[in-house]
């Protein structure tokens, strides 16, 4: 059977990850083909890029003798292809499985200066190394934005630590970039993992089970702080710190999607949350205007 997952033309919202959702509880066979069709994408944000990688990671984790064939149709739009090459999308795909990469996609020779190109982290030292590389970037290529290093550091660190420590994943991916939108220049940070998700993680602590009624509620609860799978009253504040870092400055935002739910947090707002299709793991996307 062939499953075609067609990415949206403008891929810039967390809800659009629905387009990448596979049927749940389906048993795959090697005869199945999963096609991730990026051909019509003419604009994609870091959350879409990391979302595609999480989907591929999810598929490649299926037992070898049952694993379906996975195929990615590249974007027709040269600028999107160029962008994906520049943020190391191909290299990131290669960390997950082997691919037959068309020759014309192999050697870009192009230069982009993302804050952090797509990078896989597998252990705490990887996180430290990425954070250090980000600090060097702020001093070499984003000199006018050095006051944003600390908020970007908190956002990346806390999201990556959660992926490492609480998701039962083997790490995750990060992509951070600066982009000039019509409304102004923004730094965007996307961090994703293919783990058990926030709700399941919290429910590892028995006392939390009765508190959590849905995935979206689990996300809003962790944003409030004080809820953790770990039996320690001081733990469970990582995402709350990310929220606090973002809500006190204009136009910053945080979006988190995990399991069947997502939440969007804007400046000073209480989070908007809703249900969505199931997508493996957790994907977070933070936006920090360069003028803030």
């Amino acid at each position, binding site marked *: 059977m062939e499953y075609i997952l067609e990415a949206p033309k403008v891929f810039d919202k967390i809800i659009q990850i629905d387009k990448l959702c596979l049927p749940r509880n389906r048993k795959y066979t090697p005869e199945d083909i999963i096609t991730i069709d990026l051909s019509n994408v003419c604009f994609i944000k870091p959350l879409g890029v990391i979302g595609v990688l999480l989907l591929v990671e999810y598929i490649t984790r299926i037992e070898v003798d049952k694993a379906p064939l996975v195929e990615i149709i590249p974007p027709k739009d040269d600028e999107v292809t160029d962008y994906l090459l520049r943020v190391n999308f191909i290299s990131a795909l290669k960390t997950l499985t082997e691919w037959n990469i068309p020759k014309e996609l192999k050697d870009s020779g192009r230069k982009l200066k993302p804050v952090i190109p797509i990078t896989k982290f597998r252990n*705490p*030292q990887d*996180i*430290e190394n990425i*954070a*250090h590389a*980000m*600090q060097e970037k702020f001093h070499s290529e984003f000199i006018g934005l050095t*006051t944003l*290093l*600390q908020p970007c*550091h*908190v956002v*990346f*660190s*806390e999201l*990556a*630590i959660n992926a*490492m*420590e609480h998701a039962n994943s083997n790490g995750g991916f990060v992509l951070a970039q600066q982009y000039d939108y019509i409304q102004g220049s923004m730094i965007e940070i996307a961090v994703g993992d293919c783990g058990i998700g926030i709700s399941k993680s919290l429910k590892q602590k028995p006392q939390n089970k009765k508190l959590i009624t849905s995935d979206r509620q689990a996300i809003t609860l962790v944003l409030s702080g004080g809820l953790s799978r770990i039996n320690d009253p*001081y733990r469970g*504040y*990582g995402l709350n*710190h990310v929220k606090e870092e973002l809500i006190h400055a204009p136009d910053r935002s945080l979006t988190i999607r995990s399991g069947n739910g997502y939440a969007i947090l804007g400046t000073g707002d209480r989070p908007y949350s809703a249900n969505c299709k199931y997508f493996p793991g957790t994907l977070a996307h933070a936006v920090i205007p360069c003028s803030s």
Partner: protein
Amino acid sequence: MKKHFKLSDYAITYSTRAKGDEIASALSVFAKSLSDEDLLVIDFNDVEAISYSFLDQFISRISEFNLLKRKEISISGWSQDVFPVIDKSLQHRHCEYSPSRNELRLVCQSN
């Protein structure tokens, strides 16, 4: 006499709880080399970015090592950018401190 434990000797950005453990252990070794009369100063000079998780783990561990029971222990050299993380993390762990313009003097841990 003031004896400075310079965090920037190890790194200028700190992210993870694992790093918090590592640096707290290094601080513990450093503290053992001091006399009772020495003032231990945790020096944040040149540290450019820290996470809450790193600092929470660091404070938690130095508390376990009983370092906060030293007569004199101070924090100094922070930048304006990292100060909110230090301030909130100390409050979060109920560390009492007397702030001055350039130095935080830890008094004791209340619990």
